[in-house]
């Protein structure tokens, strides 16, 4: 058995309802999606062995034959239709329902073929079809049993769940992709990051991954019995800047803040190189990435010039315009010590150059509900799982976007993001997102601070795991464990 350590217990075993990262990880091991995303986030055949795109709004999926669920029942087109219809049901509790709402129809063509129709061409669709397909015959009982006793087609079969403690899975000997080489997995829930690091160091665990504290990683790197792999993940840490209230409604003030933000220092001193200083909204792991799109880089002299040109004068160490001081509030949530340190660092840095900054940290529910209601001025938070640029930009920056908490509105960006979503050609899409990202880098509704790092620490006895920046544990189905 491979002993895996995760930070939180999975909230559910039903992939449609998965919200926390552990529910995702469990879902990938027990279920299969129509596709899976490889370590460059490119969709690969999974339960769909192939697909075609006869018109820009129609997708036809040819399903893999001879696949069975862990209870022995065959997998068919009905299960696919059922899974997506229940996600799209308006009363569904699926957290990521909004990613699928462009789908207007899911139909069974025959037992091995499914057709999806979208309201308009929807380029990111395939990237979201890795969500696990659930068995209709169990799901339609509506007794919630999949949440506590998951049944999928995946490489590992669910055995038992000690709430808050561990989940035991065993190898699915009849897995269509080939049976795993290990007997099974025990997913141990060890909430404290340092305790989890100590457990892998003591040999009580074979595998742990982010979140981990930078200090622990530095120590684990020195161990001869462990292998540490570090890469850029799919998340960003950023400042959400509310553009609807003065002084931050003034683009020059936002740009001045960006010039006063030393992202390199935050990455090096607070995150000790685990996360990387960001240059724009385009994340390095994605096909749309280019390093030529750049937000203002740390340069206090430029900030000073910009504010003076904008009519601010320095009085008693604070910039003032029309009798009003340049005062802002900077918020974050208290659960993440590194983020709390980062806002304190920024408060110091910005105050040194003439801003008056009040810092406030609250627990996540309080903080997030205030940010969702746009009651903030500057808020430090993050986005995860950016498998497509659309996921980081469409709802966040279009004028009526559901996550446009910064109240940004720009018709040019609206049009670009709409085009990016409805253009299927990836090369053209890359250009569109680069253009949008450049405008946003200048306008600064987001100041992207960091590209989040992803770290895997595994026993040197564990062979064959391919780390995926998304944090996916799917390739645990191909590992071998020496000595056991």
């Amino acid at each position, binding site marked *: 058995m491979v002993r895996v350590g995760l930070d939180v217990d999975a909230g*559910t075993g*039903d992939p449609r309802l998965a919200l926390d990262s552990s529910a995702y990880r469990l879902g990938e091991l027990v279920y299969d999606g129509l596709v899976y995303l490889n370590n460059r986030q490119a969709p690969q055949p999974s339960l769909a062995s192939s697909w075609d795109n006869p018109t820009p709004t129609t997708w036809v999926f040819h399903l893999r034959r001879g696949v069975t669920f862990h209870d022995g029942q065959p997998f068919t087109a009905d299960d696919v239709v059922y899974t997506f219809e229940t996600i799209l049901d308006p009363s569904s509790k699926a957290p*990521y*329902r909004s990613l699928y709402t462009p789908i207007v129809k899911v139909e069974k063509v025959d037992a091995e073929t499914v057709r999806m129709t979208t309201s308009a061409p929807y380029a990111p669709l395939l990237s979201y079809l890795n969500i696990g397909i659930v068995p209709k015959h169990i799901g339609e009982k509506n007794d919630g049993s999949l949440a506590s006793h998951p049944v999928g087609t995946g490489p590992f079969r669910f055995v038992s769940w000690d709430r808050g403690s561990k989940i035991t899975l065993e190898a699915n000997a009849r897995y269509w992709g080939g049976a795993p080489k290990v007997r099974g997995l025990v997913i*141990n829930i060890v909430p*404290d990051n340092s305790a989890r690091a*100590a457990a892998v160091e003591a040999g*009580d665990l074979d595998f742990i991954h982010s979140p981990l504290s930078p200090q622990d990683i530095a120590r684990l790197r020195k161990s001869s019995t462990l292998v540490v792999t570090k890469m850029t993940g799919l998340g960003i840490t950023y400042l959400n800047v509310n553009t609807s209230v003065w002084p931050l409604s003034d683009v020059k003030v936002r740009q001045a803040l960006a010039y006063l933000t030393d992202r390199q220092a935050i990455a090096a001193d607070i995150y000790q190189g685990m996360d990387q200083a960001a240059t724009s909204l385009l994340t390095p792991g994605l096909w749309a990435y280019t390093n030529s799109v750049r937000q203002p880089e740390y340069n206090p002299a430029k900030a000073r010039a910009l504010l003076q040109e904008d009519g601010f004068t320095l009085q008693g160490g604070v910039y003032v315009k029309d009798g009003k001081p340049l005062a802002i509030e900077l918020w974050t949530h208290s659960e993440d010590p590194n983020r709390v340190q980062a806002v304190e660092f920024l408060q110091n840095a910005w105050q040194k150059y003439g801003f008056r900054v009040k810092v406030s940290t609250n627990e996540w529910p*309080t903080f*997030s509900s205030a940010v969702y209601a746009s009651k903030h001025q500057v808020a430090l938070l993050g986005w995860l799982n950016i498998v497509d640029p659309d996921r980081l930009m469409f709802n966040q920056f279009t004028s009526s976007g559901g996550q446009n908490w910064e109240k940004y509105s720009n018709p040019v960006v609206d049009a670009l993001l709409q085009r990016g979503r409805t253009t299927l050609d990836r090369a053209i899409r890359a250009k569109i997102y680069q253009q949008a990202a450049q405008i946003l880098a200048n306008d600064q509704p987001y100041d992207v601070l960091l590209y989040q790092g992803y770290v895997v620490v595994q026993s040197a006895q564990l062979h064959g795991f391919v780390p995926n920046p998304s944090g996916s544990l799917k390739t645990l189905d191909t590992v071998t464990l020496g000595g056991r």
Partner: protein
Amino acid sequence: MLRYVLRRLAQMVVVLFGISLLVFGLLHLVPGDPAALLLGQQATAQDIARLRHVMGLDRPVWYQFVQYVARAARGDLGTSIFLGGQRVTALIGEHLPATAELAFAAMALAVAVGVPVGVLCAVRQYSMVDVVSMAVTQIGVSMPVFWLGMLFILLFSLQLRWLPTFGRGMPLPAAVLALLGGNGAPLVDSLRHLAMPAMTLALSAVVLITRMVRSAMLEVLGQDYVRTARSKGLTVRAVTYRHALRNAVLPVITIVGLQVGALLGGAVVTETIFAWPGLGQLLINAISQRDFPVVQGATLVIALVFSVINLAVDVAYAWLDPRIHYG
């Protein structure tokens, strides 16, 4: 005595109702909406509004409270919002035994160490033993639990490789049954898992009990009846244990009772460091997710346990001290 117990039980119902009302009110006053948290950052405002309706969160707060009380009176504490629709009673049933095991182990350890050391310090006041013990307990009471826990892990798991870093073995009662059946391995495993969390949790109680026993003993040892007993020619040993300790132990019982009650509420930090699947972790996660039914259910059970232990302490008083009567 029976009338007294019955009256206390009736008061308990009032206390539990009051606590339910308080917790319910607080949960609805603090910011943070379970529907929004359940759907995450990607959800739209319409999705959240729809889910609030499905969950009944758009009803008036008083109506939700009346419904909750009506169900709770029938023993139905509802289902968790976050943990896959699990029943709250089942979740508490899974987590409470782990917490109880840890709390009682820690308290047994604390009493086993704290009482003898406290007596020794009192009998040999200002001796080397007393000075060193008091210094050590002073350090112990100032040491943060998470730090102590990590030090234990570094020492016992990483350096000496004696104890496992995290988790819980077989529940103790089951492990004892296995031992009676001839298999001692599960009990050894359970105790090895229990050792570090119990020691970590016991520390603050050891300090408290040692100091309490010491000061109570010092007070009693200066009383006239102790001098009389000594002048009758009784041995120091007999006077200390039979006459002095029995009288000094009353306030200690209060402390032990209150500590057990507090520990049963969940030792959040210790449970988190050692990944001990107890009530504290369940409750803290539920609070941070605004999982209203779990918070309400867990606080209700903790309040119930606390009240019962308090009652047991008061009854124990009367039993230990014939001068105390409850009418």
